[in-house]
């Protein structure tokens, strides 16, 4: 538990900043809902004049801006994107930072196993993700209560956040496993950003071109499309399973690879 708590206090600052920023984004956007919904009709006519591809690229094509849930899902996808960035960075930093600063040498000289190091770091990440998502649920409920007059579907809202939770863990684990394979700690940032933006654009490409639709399997942004969840009132079981498999594979590879990794000083 010692390293676990150390990790938490290590990442405390950046976690607080990210969390405040993301929740503020959500909260402020929701506060603008009433003005949006008032002009929803003119907005819809305006948007109809845009080319269909563009609407799809921004994931706006089926959004009904007068509906609070739809509006929420539209904002939610940006929270989704930024949270993906945050947690893939956390995942890749949590190991590679110690390698870069060479403080890992200190940890290795202590009477702990490498598995212990990995487990502590993994779970400190999971805890942060869980706290972030719980805060997210609370603040989105609050924002609905404050800024919308209509009723909202609580269970769907929770489903949205659960999908985000899984996606966060997925990206965290991706960052984690990637950082183990990287030779230099400095590569962690560009590679992780590349993965997030890459998968984000894949999701756009997949929705634009029907021939390239198979690409959606490579993009977690498609797995948990907010609007689809709202319409179906459930998370796709297939994608849920796929995510869990990816997470398990990432973690297993991490443990196998890390227990044999040479220290480079």
């Amino acid at each position, binding site marked *: 538990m010692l390293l676990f708590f150390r990790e938490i206090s290590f990442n405390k600052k950046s976690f607080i900043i990210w969390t405040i920023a993301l929740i503020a984004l959500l909260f402020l956007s929701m506060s603008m809902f009433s003005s949006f919904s008032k002009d929803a009709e003119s907005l819809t006519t305006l948007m109809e004049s845009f080319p269909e591809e563009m609407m799809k690229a921004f994931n706006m094509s089926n959004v009904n801006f007068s509906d609070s849930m739809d509006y929420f899902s539209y904002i939610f996808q940006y929270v989704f994107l930024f949270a993906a960035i945050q947690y893939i960075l956390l995942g890749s930093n949590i190991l590679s930072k110690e390698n870069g*600063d*060479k403080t890992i040498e200190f940890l290795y000289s*202590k009477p*702990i196993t490498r598995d*212990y190091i990995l487990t502590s770091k993994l779970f400190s990440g999971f805890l942060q993700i869980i706290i972030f998502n719980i805060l997210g649920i609370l603040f989105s409920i609050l924002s609905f209560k404050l800024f919308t007059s209509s009723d909202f579907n609580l269970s769907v809202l929770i489903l949205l956040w659960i999908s985000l939770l899984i996606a966060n863990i997925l990206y965290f684990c991706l960052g984690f496993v990637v950082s183990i394979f990287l030779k230099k700690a400095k590569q962690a940032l560009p590679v992780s950003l590349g993965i997030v933006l890459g998968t984000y654009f894949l999701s756009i490409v997949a929705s634009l071109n029907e021939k390239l639709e198979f690409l959606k399997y490579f993009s977690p942004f498609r797995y948990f499309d907010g609007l689809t969840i709202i319409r179906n009132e459930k998370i796709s079981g297939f994608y849920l399973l796929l995510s869990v498999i990816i997470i398990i594979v990432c973690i297993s590879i991490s443990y196998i690879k890390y227990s044999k990794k*040479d220290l480079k000083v």
Partner: protein
Amino acid sequence: MNYIFANSGSASIFGLDCQKNSSEIKKNVGYLPSEVNYYDDMKVFELLKYSAKYYKKDCSKKINELCDYFLVDKNKTIDELSLGNKKKIAIIQSLLHSPDLLILDEPTSGLDPLMQNKFFNLLKEENKKGVTIFFSSHILTEVQKMCDRVGIIKDGRILKVEQVENLQDDRYKKIKLELKNKNYDFKLDDGEMTNFVKNNGMIEFLYSGDLNKIVKNISSLEVDNIWIEDPTLEEIFMNYYKEGEK
């Protein structure tokens, strides 16, 4: 220390396998890295306490003793410390859990002579208490002064493990001659002379043969000056490396 994994072979400490029981072994091992890299934003006492917690015993008394001994300011952050001061923290960190085995990698780099002396005295004390010390250094006078046994490693292979005194034994003598006749070529060709250097009438070599023979040989020369010494560890060391190359 299980930092890197062996391509082949095995190693054990305290009868435990270095890879499989690594964490068990580390409970009783103190490690001093050659380059000290600690968490920059931690204060000295935070780092030492944090380090101590891994050993699951109360080390605060030992920490205070050692900090006083090395004159360390515990309230500075690691970031503020000079190389020598970081090294001191690393020394304290390697000793605070009273290990049975100390592994010191270039322990004196960055330490001022005063601290080096204090450190060596401490090591001698620990050694008397029964602590085994592995001391890796390229400053061989240090090794000569401190160590009982020396292992010479080249290209990952141990060439020799030997008592320091035995290494310096009478088999090797360092002989230096200053000759009247500066051009005289003094050489015995029985292969017992090594590291032969001739420089403006000064002749230097290591000799491993029968001393009487060489003295007789020298007596036939006109000698200005003569030195016969035990070679330093450094010269023996260089010799081993040269032999290794052959």
